[in-house]
């Protein structure tokens, strides 16, 4: 059974095609990243998965259940955390926990998690910092041991220390067999913890690949330094684009095999030096947005 199966999901707001016919599957126990810039349709997709929004067309199956028809039953096994999580400001963290314990029918809350997160649950939610609010949100999302975690930009606005802390917790949850689906526009975050990534652009999926496959996308930046004239026109051909020209050299981007360009460069007696760097995930990601 797939943890998540989405077929041809569409959600329009008037003329705006927020989500435009996306389909994908997430395996059980997998950490799937859902990547895209603001307005790409990540949150709309997640809200449809959580039944906050009703899709115009398409089908969403989560843990073998219909996300719309079986929403109430499904949410017993779902943990949800939004990057802009809102609480009842006059309630303490403990009151939130106790309230959800009763709704979810849990007998006892795992206090270890609160201790691990160093969160004082006696404080009122209105007085918590954004980091502590996110910790409380994480506790509420994890407290009933859900099979699937749906996280919408869970580390939004958090400092790097706390971000890393949350990554560790999520990795631990995944190791215990939970499936995690998390949206982000933080590439480093996705690279660190996800197994696969969906890249979304203007409501459509432009890539669905493993992190390793994306990393392996052969994009190189080559700096070539010359004595005298720089043969710019001869070097910028198919698969090779100019990043910048500077005094005595060029910065070139090469997609795919670098051999033909290196061969050509080697034929220039004026070539003085060569520097080749492997593209990072960010650069690969940006390729989808050019």
């Amino acid at each position: 059974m797939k943890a998540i199966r989405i077929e041809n999901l569409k959600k329009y707001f008037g003329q705006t095609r927020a989500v435009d016919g996306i389909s994908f599957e997430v395996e059980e126990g997998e950490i799937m990243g859902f990547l895209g810039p603001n307005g790409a349709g990540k949150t709309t997709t997640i809200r449809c998965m959580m039944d906050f929004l009703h899709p115009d067309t398409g089908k969403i199956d989560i843990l073998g259940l219909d996300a719309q028809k079986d929403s109430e039953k499904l949410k017993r096994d779902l943990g949800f955390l939004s990057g802009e999580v809102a609480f009842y400001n006059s309630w303490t963290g403990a009151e939130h926990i106790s309230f959800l314990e009763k709704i979810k029918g849990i007998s006892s809350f795992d206090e270890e998690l609160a201790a691990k997160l160093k969160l004082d649950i006696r404080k009122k939610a209105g007085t918590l910092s954004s980091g502590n609010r996110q910790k409380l949100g994480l506790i509420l999302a994890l407290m009933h041991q859900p099979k699937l975690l749906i996280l919408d930009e869970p580390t939004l606005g958090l400092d790097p220390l706390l971000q890393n802390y949350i990554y560790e917790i999520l990795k631990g949850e995944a190791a215990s067999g939970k499936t995690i689906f998390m949206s982000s526009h933080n590439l480093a975050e996705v690279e660190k913890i996800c197994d696969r990534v969906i890249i979304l652009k203007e409501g459509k999926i432009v890539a669905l690949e493993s992190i390793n496959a994306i990393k392996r996308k052969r994009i190189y930046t080559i700096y070539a330094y010359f004595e005298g004239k720089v043969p710019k026109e001869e070097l910028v051909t198919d698969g090779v684009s100019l990043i910048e020209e500077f005094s005595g050299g060029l910065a070139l981007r090469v997609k795919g095999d670098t051999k033909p360009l290196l061969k050509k460069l080697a034929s220039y007696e004026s070539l003085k030096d060569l520097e080749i760097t492997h593209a990072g995930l960010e650069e690969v990601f940006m390729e989808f947005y050019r």
Partner: protein
Amino acid sequence: MLTLFLKTIKNNRFSLLIYLVISISFVWMYVALFPTMQEQAEKLKQAFESYPQALMKAFNISFENFFDTLQGFMAGEYFSLLWPIIMIILVLSYSASAIAGEIEAGTIELLLAQPISRLKIFLAKYFSGIVIIVAFIAISNFSVVPLAVLHNVDYKPENFLTMSILGFLFAFAIFGIGMMLSAFFSSKGKVAAIVGGVLIIMYALNLFSSFKESLDKLKYASFFYYYDFNKAVVNNQIEPLNILVFLAVGIICAVVGAVLFVKRDIAT
């Protein structure tokens, strides 16, 4: 659903307490004033007779029984305008916050992410509102009993029970409209403004209808026509039509509200 129902009541207990303190303070003041007013009845009657009768009719104020009974005095002083205003503010602030307020604050996502259906969320909010309204009406109106005993004033508890029933029906209809709009909009200010605006228009319609015979039929479009406090508290009667109108509006709006909340998209 029970958890949310109880938590909502608990969350609103302080505001309910404040509304009760305000209304009981007024009841106490009027009950305490009544014996003195009775003593001054002759002088005051002469003064009231000089008031324009059309204006008195427009505001549904009758001085016929004003000095004779506590019921008549409370009808003119308290149930005519003051009590409805307090009750309307209570109903509006609760209903606007119940759903639209949760959407506006973003806390609705916390509820929607739980294994509880939207219909149950709506019903929990709806019935906790009903309990709060009943508690307010029962406690504020029946506070007259110990206070009348305290000040040695004669009273008819059955008339105040009838007044409470009419008051509840009036509140029930307004609450239904409030919950319907709260389920539809994502801003509590908008809900309060629309319902408040509608009630002001209704009040004006009832007022204008008594000024000219040609405008007489306008009164049927106003809740304030059906809220016949004089008949309820003085004569211990409620017209069946009044019961029907309030119940029909309250029930229809609540059902429409529940359907809207289940069907709508919620994006905080």
